[in-house]
Structure formats: C-alpha cells, structure tokens
C-alpha cells in the first residue's frame, strides 16, 4: 500500500524536554519545519528520555499547525504520559518497537515472505523478509482488523516488534491446526474440511466491503492478462482480455490466497489467516488462486503440491473438486466442469505471468510447464465464451432444491431449507414439526448408510402445490440401491424388550406423511414424501 507519509518532514526529539529548554527545542523544530506549513510531520522520539508538560505543549502547538503529525519510537514510559494526557487520542503516537530475538526459537511455519517462530509459551512472531516489512505489517494489521469488524473470524497481531534488521508481528499462539495438517493427519476428515472451508468462502464472499477499503482484484488480474495476451495466438489474447473486462465489478470480499494452509481450526472455531491479500471482486478471482494452489502450479510436476502442502496431487484435486461441488451446491459433473473451465481461463494467464516474472534455474522445466499451461489455455479459449460463474451456478441449481453432502452435521441446514420452503405455505406448527421429523429420519438414514463407508451428496427437493395444498419432499442420492418402503413395519404392539431397534424412523415417516413412493432410476435412489395440509 502506498504510504503517503513516507514523504513527511522528519525531525528528532531527544534527551529531556522540560520548561528549561522547551522554547529552545520549539524554536529548533520550527526552524526544521519552516516552509512545510500544513505538511505531514514525523517526530522521531527514539532518543527522548523525558517530557514535561512544557514539552507536551510544544507538541500540541505543532499539531495545531500540522494536522498530520505523528510521534514515533516512543518508549513505554513516555507513551504512558501521552496516553494519560489524551495526546494518543488527538494524534498518532507510536510506541518504540520491542526487540525480539528468534535465535534458537522453534520455527513453526514458513511462507513465501518469511517465517513464523514460537518465541515463548503463548506467543509466536511472524517475520517478514522484504525491505518494506513495516509497511506490509501495517497493511496486514489494518486489513485483518477490517475483516474482523466485517465479521470474518481471524487472528490479529497485537504487537509489532523488531527482529534483527527487520520487523515482525506478534500473535497469540493459537492451539490451532491448519486444514493442511488435518488433511495429512486425518484424511478421513476431508468432508469436514470441505464443509467448513466452503462455509468460510461463502461467508467472505457475502461480505460487502465499504468502497476504497480494499484493492480491486480485477485490476491486478487484468494487468497480468495484459502482460501475457500477446503470447497467445492471434485473436485469443483479445478475446481473453474482453472476457476478463466483462466480469462485473463487485464489492464482495475476496481472500486472494485461500488454500488449506490459511484456514485453521482453533478449538472448534474456524479462522481465516494471512489476510494481506484481502481484496474485493467477483468470486471467480478467489477460485483462480484456489485452482492454482491445488492444481495449477503442479499440472506439469505433481510433486509441487506435495512440496508446498504436504499432501499429494490426488488429495489436492479431490479437495478442490469437492469444494467446487459444495460451493455451487451441485453434483452435476457437467456443471462443475463448466465452472472449472471458466476458472482455468483465468488461472492459466495468471500462472504464465507469474512464471515469466519469477525465473528459476531449471529453464527447460519452466518452459515445458509454461507450454503446457499455454496449450491448455488456448484449447479452453476455443470453447469458453464468458467468465460468468453465476450463470452456470444458477443453471445448475434449482431454488426448490438443496444439494448437500450427506452428513449428519448438515442436518440443521437441510431442516432450515425445508422450513424456509414451508413458510411459503400456510403450514401449521404441528405439521411443520412432523415434517421436520420425517426429513430428519430420511436424511440421517442416507447420511449413515447410502455411501458407507464413503461419503456422497444428497439432493433434497421441496415443492408446494395448490388445491389441495400439498407438500412434496423428494430425497435423491447416488448411494447403494435401497428401498426403505420394502422393510416390514416394526410391531409397535410388542413389549419394549422384544422390539427391533431399527425401522422406527421409516415407520414414523409413514405415519406422518400421506404418501410415500420410491424408485431407483439412472443410478439414483429417489424417495418421494407427500403431505396434504
């Protein structure tokens, strides 16, 4: 981010400032600030040892003339004086940075821009390699704060420290595991990861960000597209540019680097971290970076994703595919493929631009990788004509239908969906409760048995028809063929000790609903429940 203050006039405060020398110091400062009336001023207080009220008044008078005046490098003792007297509310007063040594500290994370060290029992420090680390830290803190205010669960650093020649930000150590770690250590929890990941994506993509707070990601991608468009065959570059330009502007939040290392589970709370790439735009831009993280970078050499994430290319691809299906609420492979092709039209130009600007040692491999990306892009541009994910998603989705992972954890979402539909008709609370019960019985059955021991998706369809008002709820899954209606009703007249444990759910459902029918068609179990209101 551009820090206008870098152009500010700087002056130093040092030693003691009290009534004995305040006027001398004021005269000196005024001399240094002469000809800069109204301009931003930075007073460096690193060597300031003491300041009395006479000194405070000198600063107060300067603030009246230079609205954008800040005092930096203030020791904690002196900061306290500024705080007690209200100066910290009136102007920017920045504390001196604590110095932290990371010698011998455990490295608990490493990213492209720096390392994360554990400095004591409760704290970690994230260091930055680049020269303008301070500006970057400030930027990240600001956007993380903004995200938190807008409702994104995230971690915010509480202190900025000096680490050697550079700077770091200190975070409380969260007892947190990244989704990357979970996928490696407990691959059976992939469905949990997909569900929470999609929930988080949908959450941030639903947040409207006030104008001007975050950069527009479309601009950044457009720059990349402009740089690579001339390396594409005649006409295709312009077609691509036209398609990207046609993506509508959006004020929705985009993380910009949302892969499984940047989403963590702390206790039972899911947090999004590494907020420095936060921006606004159409969700397709989010998917661009996600596709590259899971698939794009490692299309030529599948070892890359293993190096970066620690899980293999197959796992990465599966996670990505299931994420798309869940995000767009469909298990229609054609729809998912159509979405993915549009995303890849953006992902490849970005990769080509990135690779051109980050040359490595293995020229031959780089060329082969870029050639592969380019050829795939060219092929896609032959058949993709727009980058509108909304259209695909809407076409693949029916407002009367919910497509969801068949998992008991999703029961609430299914019930909510059904109740929302029931609200459109005049349904009594009793009938609604009964139908919720029926939906629970059927959905839990599918979740537990249809795909066991694997996981799969289910579709729940709710329709309300008139005269007489009838609710029709249809459950569709692609699991093992099973007709629940064939099962004999349990004998409810038997004493408790002699009754069968199972079968009560479908029996209840039969009692509640007026009509049940089952068919197995096109590899799908289709169970239809009807109730007259």
């Amino acid at each position: 981010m551009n820090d206008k203050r870098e152009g500010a006039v700087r002056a130093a405060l040092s030693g003691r400032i009290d009534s004995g020398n305040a006027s001398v110091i004021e005269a000196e400062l005024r001399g240094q600030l002469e000809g800069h009336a109204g301009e931003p001023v930075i007073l460096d207080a690193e060597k300031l040892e003491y300041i009395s009220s006479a000194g405070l008044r000198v600063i107060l008078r300067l603030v009246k003339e230079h609205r954008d005046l800040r005092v930096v490098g203030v020791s904690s003792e002196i900061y306290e004086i500024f705080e007690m007297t209200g100066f910290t509310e009136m102007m920017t007063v920045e504390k001196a940075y604590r110095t932290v040594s990371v010698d011998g500290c455990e490295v608990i994370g490493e990213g492209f821009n720096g390392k994360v060290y554990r400095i004591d029992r409760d704290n970690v420090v994230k260091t930055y390699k680049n020269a303008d680390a301070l500006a970057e830290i400030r930027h990240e803190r600001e956007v993380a704060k903004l995200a938190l205010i807008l409702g994104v669960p995230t971690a915010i650093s509480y202190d900025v420290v000096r680490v050697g020649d550079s700077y770091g930000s200190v975070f409380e150590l969260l007892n947190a595991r990244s989704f990357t770690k979970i996928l490696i250590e407990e691959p059976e929890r992939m469905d949990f990861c997909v569900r929470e990941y999609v929930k988080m994506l949908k959450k941030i993509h639903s947040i409207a960000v006030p104008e001007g707070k975050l950069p527009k990601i479309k601009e950044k991608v457009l720059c990349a597209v402009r740089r690579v468009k001339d390396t594409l065959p005649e006409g295709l570059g312009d077609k691509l540019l036209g398609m990207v330009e046609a993506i509508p502007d959006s004020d929705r939040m985009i993380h910009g680097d949302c892969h499984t290392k940047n989403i963590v589970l702390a206790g039972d709370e899911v947090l999004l971290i590494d907020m420095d790439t936060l921006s606004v735009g159409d969700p397709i831009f989010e998917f661009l970076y996600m596709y590259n993280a899971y698939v794009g970078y490692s299309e030529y050499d599948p070892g890359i994703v293993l190096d970066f994430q620690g899980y293999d290319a197959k796992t990465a691809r599966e996670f990505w595919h299931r994420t798309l299906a869940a995000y767009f609420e469909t298990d229609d492979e054609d729809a998912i493929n159509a979405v993915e092709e549009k995303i890849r039209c953006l992902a490849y130009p970005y990769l080509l631009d990135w690779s051109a600007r980050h040359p490595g040692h293995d020229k031959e491999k780089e060329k082969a990788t870029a050639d592969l990306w380019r050829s795939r892009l060219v092929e896609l541009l032959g058949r993709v004509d727009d980058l509108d994910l909304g259209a695909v998603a809407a076409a693949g989705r029916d407002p009367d239908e919910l497509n969801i992972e068949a998992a008991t954890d999703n029961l609430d979402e299914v019930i909510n969906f059904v109740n929302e539909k029931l609200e459109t008709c005049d349904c009594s609370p009793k009938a609604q409760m009964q139908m919720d019960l029926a939906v629970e019985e059927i959905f839990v059955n599918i979740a537990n048995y249809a795909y066991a021991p694997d996981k799969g998706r289910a579709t729940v369809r709710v329709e309300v028809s008139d005269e007489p008002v009838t609710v029709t709820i249809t459950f569709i899954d692609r699991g093992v063929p099973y007709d629940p209606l064939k099962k004999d009703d349990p004998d409810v007249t038997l004493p408790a000790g002699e009754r069968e444990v199972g079968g009560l759910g479908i029996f209840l459902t039969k009692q509640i609903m007026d009509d049940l029918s089952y068919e197995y068609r096109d590899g799908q179990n289709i169970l239809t429940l009807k109730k007259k209101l």
Partner: protein
Amino acid sequence: MSVPRRIDLHMHTSVSDGTDSPEEILGKVRSLDLDMFSVTDHDAVKACAVIRGLLRDGDPVFVPGAEFSCRDEEGKYHILGYGFDPEDPAVLELVALGHSLRMKKVTARLEYLRDKFGFTFPDGETEALLALDNPGKPHIGNLMVKYGYAASKEEAITKYINGIRFKKEYVRPEEAIRGILDAGGIPVLAHPFYGDGDDLILGDEMDKRILRLMDFGLLGVEAFYSGFTAKLRCEMIATAERHGLLITAGSDYHGANKMVRLGDTGLDEEEEFPEGLCRFLDIFEK
C-alpha cells in the same frame, strides 16, 4: 446583552512577561470580537487600570484579573484572581508582597551572577531592569545575551541563572486566595494539570491538590486552557462538577513570548457550556 460565548480570561501584557502593551492587547481583543476578557499579569494589576480607562461603549466585558505565583511544601501553583477591585488594599498588599519577593530575587540573582561568574552590566541597565513592573529570569537572560555572556536566553537561564535557588521566599497559596477573596475577587486555579507551568499533575494527586486549595477558599478551576487536550479538559470539567467549582477559560497569551494564539482556550462557542462556566459568566455579565 446576550450570554458571552467568545471569551478569553487569561492573558499577559508587557506589565509582566507578555510583549503587547495593555493598549495593544485591547486592540487585539476588539478585533477578535471577544464577548468577555480578562488581563492577568503575574503578580501585577497595573494593566487593569490602564484598560479600564480605555474602554468604550460596545467593548467586550472586561474582568480585572491577576495571576499569582504561589508555592508551599506541597508544590507550586498559579492562582488567578478575577473581578476584585484593583485598588483594594488586600490585592495591593498581595501585589506588593509578590513584587518585593521578585525584586529581592532579581537583586540576589544579579549579585550571584556577579560574584560567581563575574558577569556585570552597566548601571543604566540594572536600573532599568529593577524599574520594570515585574522583572524576572527572562529579563536577566536577555541582558546576558545582550552583553555576550550567553548565546541565548534559555542557555542563560539553565546554565547560569538557575544556579541560585530560593527555597523560602514565596507567596503561599492560602495568602493569595485570602487576598483575592478579601478584595471581593474570585480565586481560580490556573492550568491545574500543569502546576506552575511545568509539572504534570494527574489523577488522585490532582484531586487532593484541589481539595486542599478549596479548604483555603478556592472557588474555580481553569478547565479550558490552550495547552490542554480534550481529555484533560473533560477531566477538569468533571472534577469541577464533582466539587461544585466554577470554570474559566483562558489562553495564557503572552504575545511573542509564547506560541499561543489569543482566544485559543479550547472552548467551542457552538457547544453547550458546562454549568460551572455559565455560573462564572453570569457573575460578570453586564
């Protein structure tokens, strides 16, 4: 007339250490379009009589005033007096006491500089100095610069003049408060957080200080002051309300001797005034 909204009750003329003469300051007050003002020289009331003689119809309300430097075992204070009769013996006595202590100190300082460093000044200069209404360290400092003993007034004060200290020669706050009350005036603690100008007194210490001065008869505090931040201002207003004290507003304008604008008190004329300030203004409204 309507309730005064634009006020400045704390300023210094050349009678003490300001640089504007009483006539000049009156001219500035007029051009600023103030509704009420007071001139508060250090331990001196001469400017009050001068200004009274110059006032004409349509001028802002003038409140006679003075600022007394006080000290006791607990610290230093500047006590403002408002609305007394400048001819009243009680005030004149106070002024005379302050003045004599001041003269004593000036004389002692000049002797100290002569004996310790060998700094001497032509007779005419020392006479002129002693003839001033309120000579002090800055005046001696200026002389030293003029005769090449120091590079600047500040160096003169910190390196040489401050070499001699006076522990017992001061006016006590209860004396100042009593004198002001006896002359029919209102005693007010100037820039409370800053003591005599260079302390920084906060929290409990501030509260204790005010309670002690109230025991002596203090009636008000200068809660609006050019050198206060909004937070300090709010705190002092709350303190005044807690103790039922009057509130005043002053800039402490010193002409070219201090970087303070006349009329800059931190009081926003558009805002509702605190009750203690309204009460103070009511007393002096024409």
